[in-house]
């Protein structure tokens, strides 16, 4: 792997300044886990912030010395010579507040009680994350990002950055994202949440003290989510109606390949992900709606934006469909922003933004090459 960032190490930044969230909940102090790749140039103008989606974290690229199989979630995009070229950019990835990978979250100890936060962890919004990310940028001496980018929920954070801190973002790359969730999306999230909330092991979010984990709920939530991140076409192509044993067994055990796959994905996810984090992340998705402050006029919500935008969508993505990306484009056009939009033909559904695709990667590379030239001038 000569184009990998190689062995990386997570870092932690501790913040003592309390963070008052949009929900009016307060975090008295918190840690942010983050990783960086590449080097910051002399005028600190080549930094790119990568925001993660629902189940992501700060481990964007590379591997760990003690866990070589743990490859970063966007390793195909980020590295030397890759579209986000770490020879030219200083790349920052962090685990968002409420996460479960080293950043303060519901499973962390609340300093006020000495117990895990659990149900006491404040509800998080995209705005809160941007605030905490800005504090981390301050800590690293980054006044302005060359780009803030992300897919899905990560794209929402990138957009929020351009609204909240217009002068701190040169470019936004919003991939497979949306200006707010559709009703159907909120509905899917609610079913996923209900799976967790009604698990007897959930204990109102304070399951840590009971020594149990609501794995059944989390597993169902993930299985449902997973279906919606794929496309009918992709699932049919991958599994079809294939049977594990080649014939019907007339029972409820795993028979179809797709069942096997989903249960495996569900089990895997439930073994490492925190149920409260999952709940928080889905709520942050539901709440994101910059136009709610501007009488549902997205163009007006985007008025402060100065950044140039690259918006990318995928033809088979029905959770964050191309139509939703076009709403973003239209609102940016209204504000006379620099904007390019690419619609990638892909059959992998919402997950396409994590997959290697020739046209998608070429679009990203061409756009980012221009940013690299711009900030090295």
């Amino acid at each position, binding site marked *: 792997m000569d184009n990998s960032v190689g062995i990386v190490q997570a870092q932690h930044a501790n913040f003592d300044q309390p963070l008052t969230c949009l929900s009016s909940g307060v975090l008295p102090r918190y840690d942010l886990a983050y990783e960086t790749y590449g080097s910051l140039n002399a005028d600190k103008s080549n930094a790119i912030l990568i925001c993660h989606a629902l189940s992501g974290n700060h481990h964007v690229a590379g591997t760990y010395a003690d866990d070589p199989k743990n490859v970063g979630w966007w390793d195909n995009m980020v590295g030397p010579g890759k579209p986000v070229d770490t020879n030219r950019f200083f790349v920052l990835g962090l685990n968002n507040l409420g996460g479960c990978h080293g950043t303060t979250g519901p499973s962390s100890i609340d300093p006020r009680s000495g117990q895990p936060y659990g149900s006491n962890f404040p509800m998080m919004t995209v705005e809160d994350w941007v605030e905490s990310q800005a504090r981390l940028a301050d800590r690293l001496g980054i006044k302005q990002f060359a780009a803030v980018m992300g897919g899905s929920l990560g794209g929402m954070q990138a957009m929020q950055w351009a609204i909240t801190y217009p002068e701190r973002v040169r470019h936004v790359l919003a991939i497979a994202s949306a200006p707010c969730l559709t009703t159907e999306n909120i509905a899917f999230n609610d079913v996923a949440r209900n799976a967790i909330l009604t698990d007897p092991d959930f204990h109102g979010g304070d399951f840590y003290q009971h020594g149990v984990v609501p794995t059944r709920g989390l597993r169902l939530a993930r299985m449902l989510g997973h279906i919606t991140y794929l496309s009918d076409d992709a699932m049919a192509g991958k599994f079809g109606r294939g049977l594990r044993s080649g014939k019907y067994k007339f029972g409820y055990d795993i028979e179809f390949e797709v069942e096997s796959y989903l249960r495996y994905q569900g089990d895997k996810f439930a073994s490492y992900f925190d149920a409260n984090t999952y709940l928080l992340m889905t709520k942050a998705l539901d709440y994101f709606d910059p136009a709610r402050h501007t009488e549902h006029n997205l163009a007006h919500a985007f008025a402060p934006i100065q950044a140039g935008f690259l918006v990318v969508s995928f033809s088979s993505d029905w959770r964050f469909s191309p139509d939703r990306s076009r709403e973003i484009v239209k609102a940016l056009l*209204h504000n*006379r922003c620099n904007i390019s*939009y690419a*619609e990638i033909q892909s059959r992998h559904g919402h997950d396409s933004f994590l997959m290697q695709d020739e046209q998608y990667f070429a679009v990203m590379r061409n756009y980012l090459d*221009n940013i690299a030239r711009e900030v090295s001038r």
Partner: protein
Amino acid sequence: MTLPIIQSRPDFAAIAAWIPHGASVLDLGCGDGSLLDYLKTEREARGYGVEIDDRNILRCIARGVNVIQGNLEEGLSGFETGAFDFVILSQTLQATRHTEKLVREMLRVGREGIVSFPNFGYWKNLLQVLRGHMPISDELPYQWYDTPNVHLCTLRDFEQLCHDLSMQILDQRVITGGREISLLPNLLGSTAVYRFKRNT
């Protein structure tokens, strides 16, 4: 540096001459973005292109031209009414299926429209038809069976359309081999460029 572009596409020079400094421009079917690039450097135009082809999207992004991937046949609903000073359709009109609707949409989105197209009435084209064949030329480089051109027209045909749609022709250039034609344009011109607006 900009000269080769103008030489390879004589209609670009005519179009650029009509675009005032700092105008906002929407280029429909913008190809590799060379016209927008030219207008940006020469006219400081604030421009956006619409393009369907993946390779052209890459070329536009590479040269830093704003490009929106989309299909013109699906209309211009992604653009607000009166958003642009000029909406340009260069060498694309004849390849559009919903031509009339698109021309109307151009003047919804833009204050003025600019269209360039190959003149089917050019004598060399007519000669080939007289000889029993569909014309093939620099402007019409396709066989009848693989051409994207479904709505070829003559200068007079286009002028008739403008009249029927209550549009006023503001200016017109007719070009053959990079040279402007003033005598018998419908017969001697291979490429036509029109600037038009809504009748008020």
